[in-house]
């Protein structure tokens, strides 16, 4: 390859990597209002790095001490209707006898278990459901904040995350059974006859899927449910019926007069709550109905954001450490392999930029465990390159030219590197597919890192060829010594 061609390709690659790295890392204000948030500050973080959000769910008849003081204490008639239990006040009629109190506590506990299962299906990296003072349910989930949102540099993103959590809290704590009604408001009546055994019996299960950027809820009918629903919607020619959970309209409608094409009902739903709809509908169709109504149907739910478990500076600490690893590997590479090492440092920087971009684009939740998987991928690339460099060095010691040594070195290492990447790729895919929550995200990060590592391994060879082509002293370029005899190259 000629000098000009080599210089152009090298300049283009370096420019591309540097620009990508700048976009990936540097955030800056654009004007007094707007701000550019880099990819790294727009990556969604787990609860360990940007904290968790929680909400308290009070069953009907139970109020907090604050509400009691504000709304009840000043009214003498109502004041006597409540008894204090720990930090909450409970209506007398719910706990008149010890058996009633035990039964009520047990119903709250079993509701907590159902809510726990619903939040489990959401696939959070971490979450918890607690029963506070035996009468209140507390649900905690990761805020899913980006660093910019966490530090309140991007208030819109912070608000949208908290709103999304609010939606999830409201939908996943809905009580009541599945129903089909003739309207969307409170006056709507059920169109399912009493002796039909409930609308939930029409369905096997409900699931969520996404296709080409659209999000769907798919309700799978049983054979009997299919025929009964077909008869029902063909009984009239105009109008619609709406799906309800308890008294909440899910805004999913079925039109009268349209025959069902298959044994599934598919609904296109907004991305923000499509998964929540599928989870709550699946829960109520499989008889997991809450015994109590919480927070007046969700209208009184307050979402509270907590600080990160590992402290406010956790994200910065993690980022600095990852940067130190990158710099350390780059310096070690340059010290040992001179200009080849510099080129390898560029490849390692490319890996970092590619991974930041990939995690940002895939909207994966990044946790400390995810950072370890990222490091594992980084180590894979660094060790693969060092392994092949050493193999090439060995070949040069036999008196071969650099080109011949590179060719033989890469050929000899191919089996090892390929085996290594295939095995890690399979491990990562299995972890991503089988595991849930944080580990699934870790598996996906490792999968992307392994693919990037293998692609960049060959990119290293390409760049080695491009950069070293115009060099006269190819041994000096690699920091190798010519041991046997001088070559014309």
């Amino acid at each position: 390859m000629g000098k000009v061609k080599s210089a152009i390709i090298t300049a283009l690659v370096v420019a591309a990597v540097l620009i990508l790295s700048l976009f990936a890392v540097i955030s800056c204000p654009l004007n007094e209002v707007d701000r550019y948030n880099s990819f790294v500050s727009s990556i969604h973080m787990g609860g360990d790095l940007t904290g968790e959000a929680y909400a308290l769910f009070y069953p009907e008849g139970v109020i907090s001490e604050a509400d009691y003081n504000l709304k009840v204490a000043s009214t003498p008639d109502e004041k006597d209707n409540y008894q204090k239990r720990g930090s909450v006040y409970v209506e007398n009629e719910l706990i008149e006898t010890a058996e009633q109190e035990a039964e009520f506590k047990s119903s709250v506990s079993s509701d907590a278990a159902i809510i726990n299962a619903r939040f489990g299906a959401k696939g959070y990296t971490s979450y918890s459901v607690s029963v506070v003072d035996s009468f209140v349910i507390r649900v905690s989930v990761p805020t899913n904040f980006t660093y910019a949102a966490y530090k309140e540099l991007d208030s819109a993103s912070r608000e949208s995350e908290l709103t999304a959590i609010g939606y999830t809290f409201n939908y996943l704590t809905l009580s009541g059974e599945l129903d089909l009604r003739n309207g969307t408001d409170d006056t709507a009546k059920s169109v399912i006859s009493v002796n039909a055994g409930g609308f939930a019996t029409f369905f096997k299960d409900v699931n969520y899927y996404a296709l080409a950027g659209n999000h769907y809820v798919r309700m799978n009918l049983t054979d009997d449910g299919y025929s009964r629903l077909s008869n029902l919607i063909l009984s009239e020619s105009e109008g619609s019926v709406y799906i309800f959970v308890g008294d909440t309209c899910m805004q999913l409608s079925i039109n009268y007069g349209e025959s069902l094409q298959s044994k599934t009902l598919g609904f296109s739903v907004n991305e923000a709550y499509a998964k929540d709809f599928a989870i709550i509908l699946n829960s109520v169709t499989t008889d997991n109905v809450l015994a109590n109504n919480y927070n007046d149907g969700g209208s009184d739910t307050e979402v509270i954001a907590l600080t990160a478990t590992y402290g406010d500076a956790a994200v910065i600490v993690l980022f600095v450490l990852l940067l130190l690893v990158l710099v350390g590997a780059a310096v070690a590479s340059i010290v040992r392999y001179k200009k080849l090492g510099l080129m390898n440092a560029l490849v390692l920087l490319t890996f970092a930029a590619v991974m930041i971009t990939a995690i940002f684009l895939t909207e994966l939740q990044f946790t400390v465990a995810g950072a370890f998987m990222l490091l594992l991928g980084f180590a894979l690339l660094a060790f693969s390159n060092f392994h092949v460099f050493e193999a090439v060095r060995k070949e040069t010691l036999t008196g071969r030219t650099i080109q011949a040594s590179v060719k033989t070195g890469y050929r000899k290492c191919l089996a090892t590197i390929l085996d290594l990447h295939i095995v890690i790729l399979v491990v990562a895919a299995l972890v991503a597919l089988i595991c849930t929550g944080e580990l699934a995200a870790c598996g996906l990060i490792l999968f992307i890192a392994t693919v990037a590592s293998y692609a960049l391994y060959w990119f290293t060879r390409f760049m080695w060829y491009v950069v070293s082509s115009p060099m006269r002293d190819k041994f000096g370029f690699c920091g190798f010594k010519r041991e046997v005899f001088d070559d014309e190259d």
Partner: protein
Amino acid sequence: MKTNFKLSSRMHLLIIISVAVIVVGLLVGIICQSVANEFFNYSEDLASYKSVTVAYETTDFSGNEVEPVEQIKGFCDEAFKAEGVKSYSVVEGTTSTGGTVTYRFVYSTDSGKLKNAASIINDKIAEVIEDSSTDNVAMATTAETLLSSGYAVSMAAVAVAVIIVLHFVYFVIRYKLTMALGAILADFHNLGLFLMLMALTRIPVGSSIATYAVITVALTVIGTCFLFDRMRKNFKDEDLKKLTAYEVVDKSADESFVINTVMPACLATVSVVLFVLLSISSLSPLAIISPVLCSLVSFISCAYGTTFFVPSVYSRFKLIGDNMKKKSRSKTAKSTQK
């Protein structure tokens, strides 16, 4: 870097070390399981936990210009000390009108003591409130948290099992049966060693144990790839034909020593540095120490298992495999002669 460990001749010693650690860890785990229903020292999010939360308003309720949260933390520390309970984690939060401080306790903590502590905290708060008409500025509550990390851990266990099976199958196809046996031995040994060391050392085990179990297997897979690749090449090398199987195994173990120790060592160093830095910024260093120890045990198990234990035992596998081959060859030769 070349070593001269002669691992093949030290197989018995290495087996004794591994078996001793695994058996002692198992015994400690079984004893703890029978006494306290805790094979591991479950903590944090793996097992359910108890907590005391104090929610407060931002008002300077005592009138002495001390931040409410600082004063509340002081009350909490005194109350917990009085009741003889110790939290493992403290989390602060902000609300629209104030904030919360949550102290987490392991599930075996006496609920009565926590309720007493909560009422002591409430009494202390009531004592310092200047304006008696301003009540409800702060309130301590107790809670029992149900956690379902069990599902995540069981799915991780399924993933690890599938990975081990596929690791074996891949090595049977790409390498040799004896090497595949060596690989599966490495998986079981390293994973077993990791789990039993966790049981033995009573390091608090959170849901991160699943992550580190997966990392242990992943590092083992990487390590065995390097190790058996060296062996495959060395056994094919004409110059090394004159060496015995033991010598070739030792040579291969020497050649892959650096890569199989440096990678876990680098990760261990990163892990230690990360958690040292995090413990400075963290509200509760106790929450940090568990994952760092967990990761160190994982990396030590991998480095020891893949670098020392597996080559030594594999040398016997190789010998047995070669003997079986010889026997079958001589049988074939005899039957051909007949």
